[in-house]
């Protein structure tokens, strides 16, 4: 087992990893930018190293500074969390070259799944259904790109080959909109991923987003920990996640989890990872992408299975065999997570500020993973996630009721949050009935809030 781990992240996930390390008897080293010098994760780690000024490219994405921090503090492994360097194959490679264990899958697996076109092709070959669309990248020539788009059929979605997570996606209603959409998508892809390559997928009609959690060890054993339904999304970003999915019957669940294991096996997956699918109105599912890291919404699975994913991820990286067989994983009840973001409830814009008063909800089966406390400055440099509220109950209605209570008791002052939006969703009959889809929130936001 490792003796000291550097946590190359910030906010709630840095604190989550620090807690997992502490439980395993591992010392932790935090890194921070100048914007985060007083952040909770810096205090909670055993040591902390400044890695640069506020912009992420100069701090949390600064590979050299982070590797240097790990070397100078005598770490034997680096946990990347999610976002930032977590899915950069080059970083995993450089960790290895520096004699540090990257807590995640091998660099080759990150690279294979990070190239979304290559991932689609790999999955198709492994017999995993993919979203209908091009199996090759889109040609750069506008006329050839138009032909490729026509072959896929409108409406469609242009996506960046270099990365996922909803970043750089552009929806195209018909051929007239294609040239402008290609230009926007290529620019965003270049900015976000340094790679302007694009591909197209047919737009599914109001699908659901359902994903499967995997855990693989370095000895060829791979299990799934069932699904999470993340259909409540805004601008392709998830804000509510739950398990089980209210949209799956047992037969579809079995087929979906089997497809996810097939996907993981095909790439030799190791560590914690997630296979994302879209589920259409007829119950057919299609591979969307694979996230080769711990995900924001991992606590949903932890609450429902009792498995500590972050601790296991660390143990697997240290070479331990998976201590669980598939039949040992027995999900119970219903788990639900709401992402609490700094967001203006009227304009829906991100809302940086300083938290002036703070009190978390508590009670049986209520978990809060947060990155802030009273006095924390919420800056414009990083994403708007402040905290995650996760609840568990015997069934879905009880979980929703428990979440409403928890959110009503959550006190965050000084920074506007999306808690009012969550309360509207949780009380909505479509959500209560489990009939919502990935367009549900956009439709709800377009409707005027009740006065």
């Amino acid at each position: 087992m490792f003796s000291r781990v550097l946590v190359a992240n910030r906010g709630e996930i840095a604190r989550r990893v620090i807690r997992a390390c502490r439980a395993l008897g591992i010392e932790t080293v935090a890194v921070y930018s100048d914007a985060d010098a007083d952040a909770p994760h810096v205090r909670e780690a055993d040591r902390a190293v400044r890695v640069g000024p506020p912009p992420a490219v100069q701090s949390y994405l600064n590979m050299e500074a982070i590797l240097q921090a790990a070397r100078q503090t005598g770490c034997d492994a680096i946990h990347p969390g999610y976002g930032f360097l977590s899915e950069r194959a080059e970083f995993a490679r450089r960790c290895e070259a520096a004699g540090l264990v990257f807590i995640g899958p091998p660099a080759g697996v990150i690279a294979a799944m990070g190239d979304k076109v290559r991932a689609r092709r790999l999955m198709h070959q492994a017999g995993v259904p993919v979203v209908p669309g091009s199996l090759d990248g889109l040609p750069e020539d506008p006329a050839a790109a138009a032909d490729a788009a026509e072959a896929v059929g409108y409406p469609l979605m242009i996506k960046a080959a270099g990365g996922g997570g909803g970043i750089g996606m552009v929806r195209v209603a018909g051929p007239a909109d294609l040239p402008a959409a290609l230009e926007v998508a290529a620019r965003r892809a270049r900015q976000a991923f340094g790679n302007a390559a694009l591909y197209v997928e047919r737009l599914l009609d109001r699908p659901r987003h359902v994903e499967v959690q995997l855990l693989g060890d370095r000895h060829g054993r791979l299990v799934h920990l069932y699904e999470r339904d993340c259909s409540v999304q805004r601008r392709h970003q998830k804000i509510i996640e739950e398990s089980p999915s209210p949209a799956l019957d047992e037969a579809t669940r079995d087929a979906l989890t089997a497809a996810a294991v097939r996907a993981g096996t095909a790439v030799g997956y190791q560590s914690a990872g997630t296979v994302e699918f879209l589920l259409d109105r007829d119950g057919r599912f299609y591979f969307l992408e694979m996230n080769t890291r711990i995900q924001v919404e991992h606590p949903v699975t932890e609450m429902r299975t009792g498995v500590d994913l972050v601790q296991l991820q660390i143990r697997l990286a240290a070479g331990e065999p998976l201590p669980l067989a598939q039949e040992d994983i027995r999900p119970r009840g219903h788990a639900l997570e709401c992402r609490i973001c700094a967001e203006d409830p009227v304009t829906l814009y991100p809302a940086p500020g300083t938290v002036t008063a703070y009190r978390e909800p508590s009670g049986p089966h209520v978990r809060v993973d947060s990155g802030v406390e009273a006095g924390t400055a919420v800056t414009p440099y990083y994403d708007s996630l402040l905290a995650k509220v996760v609840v568990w109950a015997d069934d879905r209605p009880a979980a929703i009721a428990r979440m409403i209570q928890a959110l009503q008791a959550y006190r965050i002052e000084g920074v506007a949050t999306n808690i009012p939006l969550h309360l509207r969703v949780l009380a909505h009959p479509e959500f209560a009935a489990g009939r919502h889809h990935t367009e549900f929130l956009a439709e709800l936001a377009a409707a005027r809030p009740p006065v």
Partner: protein
Amino acid sequence: MEIRAPLTGTVLRVVVSPGGRVRAGEPVAVLESMKMEIAVESAADGVVTEVRRQPGDLVQAGDVLVVLDAAGPGGV
């Protein structure tokens, strides 16, 4: 008329330059805050007289980004 930042963030792009003409609803700049891009639109037709902020600048909500000489009633 002054076009102000609707939120705190970093200037990603300024898409107008002095002397340029803009119409109401057209973007004059793009801000980035918390990993989100927000286009700042002009509230009126007019001619750009001044660009106060450059890409990379950190701006607070309410800071003036661009100054316009708004067209009179009926437009130009």
